[in-house]
């Protein structure tokens, strides 16, 4: 029976992407001195799962790399090999290669076979396998005594294919001392991996000992080694049934490939007693200490989530929005009823109001994801970039569980990336300079996220050189910008957002061209947010990005222009007032300004903009709504204020084209459509052709 596998590709691609991301996070987090067993298992599982899926679909290039990766990871997690930072680097490279191969299969990238081959070679070399061109630190035959160790109770020795697990029981004479025991251990270690399973009261060498030895050597060799030091009468050597792992790794037993082609060449050359490959560059004598954690914590967490397509979630959000509108309509209709007569009905409606609001909040929260999804990619970025620039940088993240809308997450990643790269490139100084300035050589970049009001604030802070007011002002003047000397610091910093603005002395491929910051600002503004900068020269810089928590709902002020209802977004409104007739002046008989608290603000006449016959006879009879966008203020003249509402933004453009001056539409409580005014665009300036007939 032939099954069309292509239908399952998508699931495999998605899952593999997630697994690879998880692998990178774990690799960057792993503590080389004491790697967590569960973490190592998780990394192994990633390689194993991807290998399985890849071979099902016939993606042989991925299968090859993940197979070699998996073998090496298996040995690391079993304790046969210690994890070195070199290995972590190769693992990261392998992960990159697999990501590239995945992209190639998915059709949006090209796999790099050369890199794949290089990585496979590196992995095999690290495993001490087939091609070992460089001499290993300890040659075969030498006794690796420096590595001998106090055993932690949880060290697991698992026999590989041709090895056997021996249990050695012996009795040390009462008068024996610790040195003799050590010597015995040393000799035995030449044969294989030794661990103590039972010992007399600690500190006392004499008494009954039980040791476990994993070795490929025949038991006659063991007898010889032991009988030398202990009474043969009390010596018992037995083969243990292979019991790897004490049940730690039950689920993954199947994963241990008995005839592992990479591992076996190593172990089969045990004819000459060769010390098993040990921690070749462990500075201290201890083999890696393994922390014992609750196993399968991760799998338990996985079982409580399900994958849902984004369209379903969006549909749910739409329906919840509809419900809110319908409920608002009901409330409005019911408000005209006599409250006494219809008390039960009104109570029911109030209850409905609460339920609807709760439902809507829950539904909106479905799309909310923790910002750690964005933050998680930065350790890698920082690590790579710092290495490239020869700087020492540490990344701290605070508030990773802060949630924001999924759509925002994808869009905020790029600007954040740019800000972080800027911080590393321009902010953090070279280690020598930092030392000279009395700062710690390692610079710190802090990513922080928190909720404030109806917004989420994301901060990128560094303890680097800070922004130089003089240099920025000088650059601005040299570019022809008209900036008075006395402007506030805050506004000086905002200058760096101007297109083409850069005070970098050297343009690198990382930054310096003056292109990035204005793109960052524009992208953030497109999301309805804003960027602020705070900086102290010599101490550091902090950039704060403020974003609205949700894109679909807007707080607005409804106003009447003629007989039509418009909504003005609240975040652009500073105030509204009814001006005295004497405060409204005309300029050159064409424009109008209004005098508000010492400022003259240009007046935008909504009737003219939207071509609606005015109700108010003159400007004295209407209301001025002061709008602000990007530091520019203008006054919008409308006929009356109606009220403040929270409205659901509906798309105009799906069926019609974009209308100038209007950013969207919404449905009011009475079912009628109201236009949402694009305040930002009105303030920033409209072209005259707006008024021409379409």
């Amino acid at each position, binding site marked *: 029976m032939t099954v069309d596998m292509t239908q399952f590709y998508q699931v495999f691609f998605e899952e593999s992407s997630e697994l690879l991301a998880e692998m990178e996070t774990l690799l960057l987090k792993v503590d080389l001195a004491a790697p967590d067993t569960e973490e190592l298992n998780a990394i192994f599982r990633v390689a194993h799962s991807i290998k399985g899926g890849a071979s099902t679909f016939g993606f042989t290039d991925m299968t090859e790399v993940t197979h070699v990766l998996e073998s090496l990871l298996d040995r690391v997690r079993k304790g046969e090999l210690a994890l070195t930072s070199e290995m972590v680097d190769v693992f990261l490279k392998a992960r990159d290669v697999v990501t590239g191969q995945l992209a190639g299969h998915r059709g949006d990238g090209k796999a790099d076979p050369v890199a794949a081959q290089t990585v496979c070679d590196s992995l095999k070399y690290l495993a001490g396998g087939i091609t070992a061109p460089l001499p290993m630190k300890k040659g075969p035959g030498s006794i690796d005594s420096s590595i001998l160790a106090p055993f932690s109770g949880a060290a697991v020795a698992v026999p590989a294919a041709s090895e056997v697990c021996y249990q050695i029981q012996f009795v040390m004479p009462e008068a024996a001392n610790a040195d003799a025991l050590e010597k015995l251990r040393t000799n035995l270690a030449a044969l294989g991996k030794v661990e103590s399973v039972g010992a007399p009261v600690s500190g006392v060498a004499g008494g009954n000992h039980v040791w476990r030895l994993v070795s490929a050597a025949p038991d006659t060799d063991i007898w010889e080694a032991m009988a030398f030091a202990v009474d043969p009468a009390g010596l018992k050597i037995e083969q243990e049934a292979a019991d790897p792992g004490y049940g730690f790794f039950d689920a993954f037993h199947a994963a241990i490939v008995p005839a592992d082609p990479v591992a076996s060449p190593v172990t089969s050359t045990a004819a000459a007693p060769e010390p098993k490959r040990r921690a070749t560059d462990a500075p201290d004598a201890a083999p890696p200490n393994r922390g014992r954690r609750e196993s399968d914590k991760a799998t338990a967490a996985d079982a409580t989530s399900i994958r849902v397509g984004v369209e379903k979630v969006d549909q749910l959000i739409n329906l919840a929005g509809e419900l809110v509108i319908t409920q608002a309509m009901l409330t409005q209709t019911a408000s005209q009823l006599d409250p006494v007569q219809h008390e039960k009905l009104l109570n029911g409606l109030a209850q409905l109001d609460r339920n609807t609001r709760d439902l809507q909040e829950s539904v909106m929260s479905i799309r909310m994801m923790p910002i750690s999804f964005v933050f998680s990619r930065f350790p890698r970025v920082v690590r790579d970039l710092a290495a490239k620039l020869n700087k020492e940088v540490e990344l701290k993240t605070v508030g990773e569980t802060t949630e924001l809308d999924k759509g925002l997450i994808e869009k905020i990643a790029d600007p954040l990336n740019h800000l972080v790269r800027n911080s590393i490139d321009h902010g953090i100084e070279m280690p020598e300079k930092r030392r000279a300035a009395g700062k710690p050589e390692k610079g710190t970049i802090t990513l922080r996220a928190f909720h404030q009001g109806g917004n989420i604030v994301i901060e990128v802070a560094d303890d680097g050189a800070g922004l130089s007011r003089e240099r920025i002002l000088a650059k601005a003047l040299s570019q022809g910008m008209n900036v008075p000397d006395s402007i506030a610091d805050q506004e000086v910093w905002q200058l760096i957002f101007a297109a083409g603005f850069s005070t970098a002395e050297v343009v690198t491929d990382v930054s310096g061209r003056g292109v990035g910051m204005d793109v960052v600002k524009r992208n953030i503004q497109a999301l309805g947010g804003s960027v602020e900068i705070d900086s102290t020269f010599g101490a550091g810089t902090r950039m704060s990005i403020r974003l609205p928590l949700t894109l679909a709902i807007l707080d607005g002020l409804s106003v009447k222009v003629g007989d039509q209802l418009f909504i003005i977004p609240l975040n652009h409104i500073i105030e509204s007032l009814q001006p005295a007739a004497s405060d409204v002046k005309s300029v050159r008989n064409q424009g109008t300004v209004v005098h508000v608290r010492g400022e003259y603000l240009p007046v935008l006449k909504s009737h003219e903009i939207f071509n609606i016959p005015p109700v108010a006879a003159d400007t004295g009879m209407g209301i001025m709504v002061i709008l602000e966008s990007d530091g520019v203020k203008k006054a919008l003249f409308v006929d009356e204020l109606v009220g403040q509402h929270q409205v659901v933004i509906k798309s105009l453009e799906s069926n019609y084209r974009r209308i100038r001056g209007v950013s969207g539409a919404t449905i009011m409580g009475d079912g009628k459509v109201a236009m949402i005014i694009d305040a930002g665009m009105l303030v920033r300036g409209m*072209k005259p052709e707006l008024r021409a007939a379409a």
Partner: protein
Amino acid sequence: MSQAIQSTPSKQGAVAATAAAGGEFLTFTLGNEEYGVDILKVQEIRGYDAITKIANAPEFIKGVVNLRGIIVPIVDMRIKFNLGNVEYNQFTVVIILNVCGRVVGMVVDGVSDVIMLSPDKIKPAPDFSAQFDIEYLIGLGTVDQRMLILVDIEKLMNGRDMALMNEYAEAA
């Protein structure tokens, strides 16, 4: 674009005769004339009410309405084609169309019935190109004594002069 599938090739200026393979047409009236559109493009028929004007839109685009949560623009074909009495009362009918993924409504004088037309009942539209653009006409259909002006509603709604699409809107 044009394929004349008449079995007898006609030289009578069959300019824009698209593959008129017949089909079901919803007929409606505009003034004294009867029109027909492909029934598959029709989503629903409703009355005319609660319209919100669009600023600076051409005359025949009356505005937008809320159709169960979707914002739908409404055009008045009577104004566009310069036909009939343009008044709005309880008898005014709006045909909601679904063309090219967009939902658009058009105001007509009245809706008649759905008629099945076989290809032989559809004649190519005569050449009026001097007077008006017949790009939108599929042809002329004959049923009993009636002549139906069959309109390619997709071409019409997406056409340049309807200015419903972003591409045709005034440049920023």
